[in-house]
């Protein structure tokens, strides 16, 4: 099966007054039709920049310095602004944490949605309107016909996010990048949105990259997980595998620090220290200073990505044996 998205050795750097920040520093992954990938990391891990790179939304002082992004066979790195206009919204769409990033507060929902369709296709007004109505219905908005002529502020936070999802899906894109889309929402509303995205991805065959800091949210949603640390994917594999048998010490540390994995009232198993500055990365593996399993080589040369079998990939010299279940 051919991949919808192939990201190869992607590097996005920011050239600031203080120095070069290697926000994304050699990221590889691929996605197939209808596949959902959870891209998990802390702030500064490069997960958001990876998402923005795929949409060509890296602005100066940042730029993509190396690598390739192929979407349905088309190379995106180096695409002209003209080409991007045809790609964005039609082949790849984004859902932000704040739905007001996509919604214009002074325009009615139907105006915005029709614009999104008519920018890419010449179809009659009524057909476009029908498609908007269907899209709203599909994301679970009650009485879509009336809601079409409402303004964004007349929706609740959860409903606004549904509208943003509906807009993202309007042109049947091959890929959706969802950047923390439920982080600002309440638990019960988050569950609704996650359920909706899961259903739609399956129905429409859209591939989804779900960028989040929350392992728990993607654990029930994603087919596979990629864990990022300091600009690189340190561990990748099928969701259940990674969660049940983490091989990278960082993944294990994250899982073990969750309250549910610790006896009630006892100190949590914390990862010591804090994420390194991207301006002053230590030599070797960036996680080494916080790692309990670090050996000498870890502090000297950054580990390359290795195949760990069972569709799993890893950047670690001293991984946990796959048998050592958490």
């Amino acid at each position, binding site marked *: 099966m051919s991949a919808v998205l192939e990201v190869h050795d992607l590097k996005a750097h920011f050239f600031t007054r203080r120095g070069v920040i290697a926000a994304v520093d050699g990221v590889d992954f691929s996605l197939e039709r209808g596949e959902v990938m959870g891209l998990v990391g*802390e702030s500064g891990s490069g997960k958001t920049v990876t998402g923005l790179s795929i949409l060509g939304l890296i602005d100066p002082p940042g730029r993509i310095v190396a690598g390739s992004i192929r979407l349905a066979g088309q190379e995106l790195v180096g695409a002209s602004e003209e080409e991007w206009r045809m790609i964005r919204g039609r082949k790849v769409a984004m859902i932000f944490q704040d739905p007001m990033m996509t919604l214009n507060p002074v325009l009615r929902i139907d105006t915005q949605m029709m614009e999104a369709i008519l920018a890419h296709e010449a179809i009659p007004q009524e057909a476009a309107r029908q498609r908007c109505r269907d899209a709203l219905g599909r994301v679970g908005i009650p009485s879509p016909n009336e809601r079409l002529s409402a303004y964004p502020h007349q929706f609740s936070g959860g409903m606004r996010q549904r509208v943003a999802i509906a807009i993202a899906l309007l042109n049947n894109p091959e890929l959706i990048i969802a950047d923390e889309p439920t982080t600002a929402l309440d638990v019960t*509303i988050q569950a609704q949105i996650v359920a909706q995205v899961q259903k739609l991805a399956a129905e429409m065959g859209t591939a989804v990259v779900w960028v989040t800091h929350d392992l728990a949210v993607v654990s029930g949603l994603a087919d596979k997980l990629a864990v990022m640390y300091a600009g690189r994917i340190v561990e990748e594999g099928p969701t259940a595998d990674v969660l049940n048998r983490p091989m990278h010490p960082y993944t294990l540390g994250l899982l073990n620090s969750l309250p549910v994995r610790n006896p009630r009232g006892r100190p949590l198993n914390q990862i010591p220290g804090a994420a390194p500055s991207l301006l002053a990365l230590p030599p070797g593996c960036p996680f080494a200073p916080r790692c309990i399993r670090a050996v000498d080589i870890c502090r000297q040369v950054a580990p390359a990505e290795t195949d760990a079998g069972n569709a799993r990939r890893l950047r670690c010299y001293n991984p946990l044996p796959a048998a050592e279940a958490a």
Partner: protein
Amino acid sequence: MNLIEARRVSKRFVRKPDLAAKIAGMLGAPVKQAVVHALDHVDLSVAPGEVVGLVGESGSGKSTLGRIVAGLQDASDGEVMFEGKDRRTLDADARKRAYLAVQMVFQDPMSSLNPRLRIADIIGEAPLFHGVVGRAEARSYVSEMMNTVGLNPAYAERYPHQFSGGQRARIGIARALAVKPRMIVADEAIAALDASIQAQVINLFMKLRTDFDLAYLFISHDLGVVQHIADRVAILYLGRVVEFAAAEKVLATPNHPYSQALLANMPRVETGKHAFAPLEGEIPSPLDPPRGCHFHPRCPHAMPRCSEEVPPLKEIAPGWMSACHLNDRA
């Protein structure tokens, strides 16, 4: 005796009609005062050294309750008792001590620190001002506080922007701790932190509790965290406590349908990929909450009675309070 006890506390936010609305009113248009019932007759108590978790979604009033307990806002109705006395009736000195005894730790580790003060001043200002320490010992007191929360005292001369998120959270905790409180109200104090840092700060909270015999009102939307550190848990929905009991009971066998739904919707790493069965419907606006039980429009067990009558918070087992009409059957 309880350290803090909120009795029938209500908080209403009234938006008075503005000039345009008043004129419209004079011309005969119906003008309604917008009243938000942020809290509706809430009872809550925290014993010395106890950790009470406060769980709820937006509009539940959990932050408002925290601010009232910390003395940052006044209740519209009802009273908050500190060691059995209404703080407002105390004389000026005792009142100040009562308010200092309850300190708050805020959500946003950046905006809760004054960007123009050095860490030494952020932590040391209040204890110095209130005479907790003398001017001569202020320096060493700040160092001691920084050590207590796991910060290097050598950084005392730095400014907040020079610290990472986790360190800023620790500064906020040190500032609260420096006036020797009996209780800390932590309002989503770890929500803005990275996953690997959250565990560190939770551990710090637990260590400080044993070291200083602190009580906490721990406000969070994260049931996992609350489950881990709280002795008792109160669950709020649209300004009312719907269930209040020992943490292991509420979070293992919740009684109220809303508690059950909340627990079922909590994302868990354990579950693996699965189909979701989310709770239907939206959280109603606190401007216009449903009649009767606020939860009835979303409740799978709603009966005709639920839309008529407000279910009172009743003891359904020793120390286990729940506000649901279903408990009257049986």
